[in-house]
Each structure stands twice: as C-alpha cells, then as structure tokens.
C-alpha cells in the first residue's frame, strides 16, 4: 500500500484536519482496487499511516459486503436477486449462470476466471434484471444476452 500514500495525502486536502480515520474506508477501497483484496500487510500499513487501531480496521473490514480479505476470480459476476429483479427473471438468470459455470453463488471456477455472487438491490430496478460484472452494470439481461456477455470476458 505504501506506493498509494501520495494519493491518500491528496484526499486529505478536502477533509477537515484531525480526522484521519475518515480515510480508512477510502484507503481500503483503493487498496482493493489496486490488488484485488486487502492483505495482512495492508492492515499493518494502515495502523501505522492512519494511527487507527488494528481491531477497528478489522471491524470495518467485516462490516462491508464489498471488502475482501482474499483474492477472487478475474470476473466477479454479481446477480441482483432482490424484488424487482426477481420479478423480471433474475432467478432464471442465476440458475442459468450457475449451471453454465458449474458453480454455486459464493464460489469461483477452478480456472479462477469467474466468481459468482448474489447481491441485494443495485439501484437499477427499472432496467432489471441486472448483473454487476466487476464495476460495471449490465442491465435488461436475459440468458442469451448473458451468454453473449460471458463470451467477451476472457
């Protein structure tokens, strides 16, 4: 994480002074974006850089669904299965994906290409069903559209 410190320092300029712990979540997000997950060494680094106790960092890490302590597949497929998406075919989509990849939600394919997850409402209910692939939303999907999308993910 050390190479990201200049970036973190720039973030500080728009924050009120004396509240460095506010940078904890932004730092964790940035580290994960950089290397895919948060390692033990990163936690040590943040204890030192932000002056936040280790236990507080562990609590924050376990609080949020998006933060990870271990790497996952290259493509993270997150299928929304909340009300509006389910009313537009999300359950069929999930079954299709699970069958095609041979894994259940929460699992990664042996070649580490795909990780499959379910998520709660993504705020795209008007274009349901939606699957989030890494950062990007793919909306109005049906099984055929999903197959076409998978072909494009190496």
């Amino acid at each position, binding site marked *: 994480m050390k190479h990201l410190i200049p970036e973190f320092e720039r973030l500080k300029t728009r924050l009120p002074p004396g509240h460095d712990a506010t940078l904890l979540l932004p730092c964790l997000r940035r580290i994960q974006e950089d290397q895919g997950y948060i390692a033990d060494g990163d936690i040590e680094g943040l204890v030192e850089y932000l002056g936040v106790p280790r236990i507080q960092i562990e609590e924050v890490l376990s609080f949020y669904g998006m933060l990870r302590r271990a790497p996952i597949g290259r493509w993270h497929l997150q299928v929304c299965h909340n009300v509006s998406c389910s009313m537009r075919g999300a359950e069929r989509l999930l079954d299709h994906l699970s069958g095609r990849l041979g894994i259940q939600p929460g699992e990664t394919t042996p070649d580490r290409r795909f990780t499959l997850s379910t998520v*709660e409402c993504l705020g795209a209910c008007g274009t349901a069903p939606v699957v989030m692939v890494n950062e990007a939303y793919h909306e109005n999907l049906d099984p055929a559209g999903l197959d076409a999308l998978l072909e494009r993910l190496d």
Partner: protein
Amino acid sequence: MTGRKVLTGFEITADSHTLAGYRARGGYEALAKALKTMQPRDVTQEIVDSGIQGRGGAAFPAGRKWQGIDPHDGQPHYLIANADEGEPGTFKDRWVLEHDPHALLESMLLGSYALGVRHAFVYIRGEYDRPWRRLDAAVEEAYAEGLFGENILGSGFSCDLFVFRGAGAYVCGEASSLLGSIEGTRAWPRNRPPRMTVRGLYQAPTVVNNVETIASMAWIIRNGAQAFREIGTEKSPGTRLISISGHIRYPGVYEVELGYSWTKFLHEDCGGLLCNKPLKAVIPGGISSQVMTGMDAKVLTPGEVEGMTLDHEVLRAAGSSLGSGGMIVIAEGTCMVRLLQIMLRFYRHESCGQCTPCREGTGWMHRIIDRIVAGEGRPEDIGTLYHIARFNDGTTICGLGDAAGYAATAMLDNFRDEFDYYIEHGHSKFGGNLECQ
C-alpha cells in the same frame, strides 16, 4: 405528462450534465445571488417557506431540520448529501447524480452557506460506479472554476466537498450509521437523542439530507419559495422523483407533481401493466413502505375506480407512504409469499445486529418463511410472524427493524389467504410465480 418540473425540466444532451450545460440553463445563478444578496439565515428561511419535505423516506420538513443549526455559534458544522440509495426499488437519486450532478453541488454550496459549513460530504453507495464518475467529474469542474475551495466567487465564503464512497451496506443509508461510516468505525446506527443537529459527525452539529431533497434547493433559491409552493398540493409542495419498476410497461424515473393522479400515472404515463394483467398490488415507496392491494390503491384499471392522488397525506391516510419513491408494481398471478421471502431475506442480511429484536427477529422471520416456501409451514407460523413483527416495532435503534416488521404485517394483512393456502397445501397458489407471463 406528469405535471410541472423542478428537477428534470431540461433536455438531456451530450453535455447537459457538465458545468457548461448546467450554466447554460441558469446554473450557479442562485449561488451568486445568495452570496451577494442573502444572509445565511435568509437562505434557511427560504427553504422553510418552501415547505419542502425530505425525499429520503420519512418526509421530514427540511427547513425545520436546518433551523436546528445556528450557523453563527462558532462550532464546526457539517452537511451531508445522502446518496446511499439502497432501499430496494429505488433508483431516482442515481438519475440526479448521472444527469444533473451540478444541481446537487450548487445546492450543497447553498446549504453549506446557510448552515455555516466549511466541509461538506456526499455519501454515495459503493456500487454506484458510473454515477460516482459523473459526480466526481462535476466536482473537479467546480473546483477548477473556484466554486469550491477558498473565498468562493470573492465572497469570503469557503467550502470544501469530499465525495465519500460506501462499500456495500444498506444500513449505511440510515443517517447516523452513515456518520460512523465516515468516521472510520463500524457503521452502527446511533440512538437519539441527541439529535444529529446537536451532535452528529465528529460530535458536531450535522444535517443529513437525501440527494433529491438537496438538489431541489438551487431551484427554490433561484425561483423563490413561493414559486415552489405553487407546484404540488398545499401540504405536499413540489414534485417527487418516482422510480417505478416491476410489472410495468415503461419502467424508469419520472418526476411527478405531488397531487398527480395515480391512475393516470400508472396507466397512461407508464403504459399500464405488462401482459395486460390486472394490478394485484403496489409497493408505493420502496419495500420498507407497506404494500397496498390494487383495490386499496384505487388504481386498478383506468377509469374503473376513482383514482387516488400521489402525495404524502393521501398515502399516509391509506396506511402506506411515498417513502423513498421506489414504486414496485405487481400484477395478478404473482406469489406474494415468495415476494415476502425475498424481502425478509434482505432485512436479515442487512441487519447490523446490534439490537436483539432486529437481529433475532429478522433471522427468525426469514427462517419461518423459508420453511413455508419449502412446503413445511405450520398453522401457527402466521401468528408467530405477526408476533415477531410487532415485537420489533419501536424497540430498535434504527428504522430497519421496524421496516422488516411492517413489510411482514402488511403482506399478511392484505394477502392472508395466500399464506394460509401455502401452509395448508404445501405449495403456492400461484406456482411460486414472480414474473409476469
């Protein structure tokens, strides 16, 4: 046409979301006017006079919240725009972030001036990548033109803005939980009192408002409170962004003048139901607002019944609410037992766990409904669900525990026969169907 517009009355073009596009339609004129001719208190008074109610769920008068802060008491104050938008069915703040981010930013500046805020925040949900990119680009444009930072427009007023990204937790949309998230701690909701306008972010007086609430402020300052009051109804002034989804032909975000006919909205503006099915039920304002039957909503078919209007009072009187504006339309033939199962799974997943009735109650209700759906329901299950739901009410720190209970009781009250049928026969009266076929 869904009535007069406050937020969406412009044409979306390639650059309508940029600073240049916003300026071309009068953007940042309200800020210049306020900084030159108004005292901070005058700005707050204008918001009070407009009568605007919060658009995040509870419809609390925004002006009254702002009056809870004395801009000249010498302490730091904070203003936070709540862009967490996690309430299932809701996607309207995303419209503002993607299509009119500068309306939010200008309004944040006006609010910061009114409340004596030096450092303001936007808390945006972690999954919103594209909306965040749009917002972030707008913030950089505004900084580059001296609209944030020191001595804005030569007025002596200084203000910085930090866009804080969440990381996937519904409860962080709850205003006090959001504070913990920004402070770098586990984001547990906090007991009130003290109110957040007394002790909020970093223990200082803080206002948290929904994105749509704040984004309307620039319009109010530019056009005046009186002009705002002329839109909508006497008790529900202005407009609401309604995000509509489910079994509806034209889902999307619509700006609806408060007091507009619900029947017209559903059947004309939104094209009526999918598959030409009759309306079975509607959840008016996100799953935390009580489900209504099509009959109760009086919007069954065009012309068949006298329609209800969309405003805060009418929906409250009908036992539900406009909530977050996330309207979910449910056609005849849908299995309500399965829908409640999805809702309860959600609340169980999102409970932060610090209050026993919420932590245990959401889990317990979810286990019961899972069992009913698996065909192993017992006759006493309905009574137990009611019991847990009522026990939650009012005994928890934040509204999540209450909402889970309300969702369950409203579904049971309105569709009791379906739950009884499922338990008695071990399968759904509607084949477990959720889609409109």
